Structures are given as C-alpha cells and as structure tokens.
C-alpha cells in the first residue's frame, strides 16, 4: 500500500467558505445562544445574495432579522423571536404579520430536542413538554405517541439536520478542533446534526494548544468542513473573554428598524459596502473596540498529568 501524507488543514477565507458550502434553498443553522452568534458569516451570506434559505435558530436575534430584511429568508424555524434585553424583532414581526415569511415554531426545549435527535442520528426524540400549550394545533410536526412502557401520551419532535451549520468559537486549530467556553448554547448539537459545518474563530491556534486542554474541545476537527479565522466575528453579540456584547447596538437596531429605508441604508453601509470582517472591525473604530474589551479573568489551571 502506498504511503499517504496527512491532509493539510481546512483553513479557508470567509468568502470561499460561504460560497463553497452554502447554496440557495439550503436549511442553515447559525448557532449560539446570545453568545458567539456568527454575524460575520451572516453578513457574508447577505453579500453573496443567497436566497430561499430556511433559517433555523432558537432565537432569530438580530442576525436573522438582518437576513430577513436582506431577502435571504424563505422560512424560519425558531422558538423565541425577540431582541434580547430590548424588545421585539421588527423585521421578523413585520414579515410574519404580512405573510411574507413562513414560520415553523417550537418551544426552546422542543427545538433543542429536534437538534439533539439530529445530532444523535435518531429520527425523533420525545420530551415531556409542549402538550400543555396550543402549539401542536399549529405545528403538525409536533406529534403524540404512546409511551411503550407506561402507556401515557408522550410528545415527540422530528430530528433537525440542517444542510449547513455555522459555529463561531474562541479558538480552533487548522483542522477545526474547537475550543469553546462560556455559554455553550446549542453549538455542539448543531455541529453533530448538520450535514456540513463551517467554523469561524477568534483565533486559529497551534494543535498543541488544543492538545493542552482536551476537555475543552467542543467539536472534533473531523466534523468540520471549513475553518475561518474571523476576529470579532460575533459582534454585536460577544465572545466570552474576548469582547463584550454590544448592547448599545442591540438598542440601536430597534430604532434603525422603525423604518425599512433606514435598514437599507444600514445594510449598504455595514454589509454591502464592506469587503469582509476586517473592514467591519476597522469601521467599528478603536473607541468602540476598547469599550467592549473586558478585563482578564483566567481560570485556575488544571493538571492533566504526564503518564509515561
């Protein structure tokens, strides 16, 4: 048998990762519960004019509101739609109220369970919730079966296996072995449930950094199709230990979206008018950036030991 060289890493630039892996009509899941929301990828999807996407996320957040306004979305699969800490999500709300956007709605636990089934390679999973609400009347994918052990009714939801998952994290090596900490949300389930996976990180580190703390490895590199180094890739959401959530922008979005013309101006200025994340960070400016930098708080080191 012929000797084989180890494959090179999966590092790509943002443009190539999005154009190679995300297609019109795909169901995609841009992960992250308040934390590490991959805005950098979303803006690239908008710039590339991707269309007819089914956008899956527990909380559509500003990221999907921007994609809805930009015309990327055909349908939203979600469990809570709002501007966290501020109020409503005007784009989502307006498009739904006008019948321009198809929705498929769950509770948080329902959507989390869909992802878990997808991540575990099961067709469906049960949960002991939702049946007390009116949701099953309006979402027929939420079904009831008989528990084979107790005979009681149990709610089941189908697996969710997005065509493409996107996870932003603090660091990864060139193979995509991901270290992620802070609020871990649904990122791991999205990584295992998705058919393709794009990872963007604050910094690409040497494999030895990953190997120094394997209990923090959240996603194994072999699940990952593309690794993109994208500092500030989650702004205006945050990256624990790297930068704070830009709460001021979350509030500003509420006033920008009071008039769709203002949204267009914003998209032109902050998305279409910029080539990528580097320009975005430059445009944010040093004053804003310094304001969002936290003081350091390192965890106590752990000892893995050396076993010879």
């Amino acid at each position, binding site marked *: 048998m012929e000797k084989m060289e180890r494959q090179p890493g999966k590092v790509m630039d943002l443009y190539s990762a999005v154009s190679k892996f995300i297609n019109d009509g795909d169901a995609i899941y841009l992960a992250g519960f308040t934390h590490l929301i991959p805005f950098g990828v979303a803006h690239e999807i908008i710039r590339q004019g991707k269309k007819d996407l089914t956008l899956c996320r527990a909380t559509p957040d500003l990221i999907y509101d921007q994609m809805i306004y930009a015309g990327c979305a055909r349908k939203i699969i979600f469990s*809570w739609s709002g501007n*966290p800490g501020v109020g409503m999500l005007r784009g989502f709300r307006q498009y739904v109220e006008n019948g321009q956007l198809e929705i498929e709605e769950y*509770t948080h636990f329902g959507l989390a369970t869909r992802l878990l089934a997808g991540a575990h390679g099961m067709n469906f999973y049960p949960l002991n*919730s939702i049946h007390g609400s009116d949701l099953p009347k309006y979402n027929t994918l939420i079904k009831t079966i008989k528990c084979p052990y107790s005979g009681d009714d149990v709610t089941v939801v189908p697996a969710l296996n997005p065509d493409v998952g996107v996870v932003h994290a603090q660091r990864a090596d060139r193979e995509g072995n991901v270290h992620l900490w802070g*609020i871990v949300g649904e990122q791991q389930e999205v990584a295992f449930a998705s058919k393709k996976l794009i990872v963007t990180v604050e910094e690409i580190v040497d494999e030895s950094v990953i190997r120094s703390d394997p209990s923090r490895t959240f996603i194994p590199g072999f699940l990952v199709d593309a690794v993109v180094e994208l500092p500030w890739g989650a702004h205006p959401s945050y990256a624990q230990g790297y930068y704070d959530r830009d*709460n001021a922008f979350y509030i500003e979005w509420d006033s920008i979206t009071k008039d769709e013309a203002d949204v267009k101006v914003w998209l032109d200025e902050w998305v279409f008018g910029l080539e990528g994340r580097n320009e975005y960070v430059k445009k944010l400016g040093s004053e804003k950036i310094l304001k969002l930098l936290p003081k350091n708080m390192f965890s106590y080191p752990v000892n893995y030991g050396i076993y010879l």
Partner: protein
Amino acid sequence: MSYTSNETMVAVAARALNNHEKVFVGIGLPNLAANLARKLYAPNVILIYEAGVIGAEPLRLPISIGDPCLVTGSLAVCSFHNIFANYLQRGLIDVGFLGGAQIDRFGNLNTTVIGDYYNPKVRLGGSGGGCEIATFAKKIITIIPHNLKHFPAEVDFITSPGFLGGRKERQALKLPGNGPEKVITNLGVMEFDADGEMILTHIHPGVSVEKVKENTGWDLKIASELEETSPPTDEELKVLREELDPDGVYLGRRKD
C-alpha cells in the same frame, strides 16, 4: 421612602422565595427579585438562567439573558438542551418566573400571538422556555401589568400552561409542576383557589378593590380575608436602588 409600583412588585416577589430554592430566572424584574432575595431573605437561593448558567453572581446588571457577566464567577455552565432536560424536565427547579402579554383566570399565559395565529394582529416572541418553565417548575410566579389588555376573559393562545380549564385539566395532562402560585401586578397579588381560578388575596397600598376589578377582564374572585401588601421596606429599596439597579433600568423613575 416613596417607591414605584415596579419596586413593590419586585419586593413582593423577593419575599415569596425561600432559602435554598433553585430559581429559574429571567431578565428584568424577576432577576431583580431573585437577587434581592439572595441579598436579604434567602442567601442560599441558587439562580439558574435559561442560557445555561447555574449559580450566577453577576457583578453588573445583566442586560440580556445570555450576558457574559452571568458566566464569569458562576458555579456551572451547561448546554441549551441540558438546562431544559437535566434541570427543568428532571424536576430540579423549585420556582420559575413568567410574564406575558395576556393571562386568563386559570393562569394560562400567552406570549405568542394577538389575534389569529395564521393572520396575526400582533406577532409576539413565542414560547422560548416559557412553556417548559410553566410545565416543570414546582411553582410559578407571574409578574404582569394589571389592565384589561393583559387580563382578558380568554387568552388568544396558550403558550405557557397554567391550570388550562382548571386544576383537574392540568392534572389530567400530568404536567409535572404544580402550576401557577402567585400573580404579582402593579395593583395587587393573586393566588389560585381549589379549582385553579385566580383569586385576589392582597391589594397594594392605595389601590381599591374596585380598581382591580375594573382592570380585570372577568369577574375576579376576591379573598374573604383580603390583605394589604406590605410596601417595600427602606432596606429593600436601598438594596434595589444602590446595589441591584443603580441606573433605574428596570425600576423606572424614582419619586424621591
């Protein structure tokens, strides 16, 4: 010291928590109430946030449910699925706080839609974890403004189940939590009777029963021994204003 109705609601909610209880907390008034309880009445209360943070001791007021200040210095962080499966569904949460756009006489809450689901007048946020909190937490405390809009005869959509059509209906569905326990408003406090129907037990100082009834969309039951709420104490107000919400983000404008 004079006080706002938000301060009254927070103080009443804080007093309802017992030491060592595990409390599922949201942002805003419930967060203030849980932290006020932790400072004064229930030092061992464990605050659990929907974002998957357990034992948070934030150094600043969290603005969003997933604020990074909740993570630094907390006891544990778990995944989105785990917080619902391991903590709520497993039955480990003692108290859950809820709010909503509409509540009915059986404590059912609507945070989904005003009008028809397919042709909404107002599309609201949806369940989030509300349905799970309502289903699994041992007791539910709801904080909600008291007016006809929020207290209609019937909710347009049940997002988070209270007693559904009455205590028996909730039991028939075998929802694990005990259901709503208290509804705290700017006018008073309501509990639930043997049938699971809301009953006014406390009115806040200066509020008349008439005013409560006028602001409720059904013929609200009144407890035979109706009490007046003890107003927020100076100590409660000091902790709220100086430590927990110094900028008045959630407590609103002060009168003094």
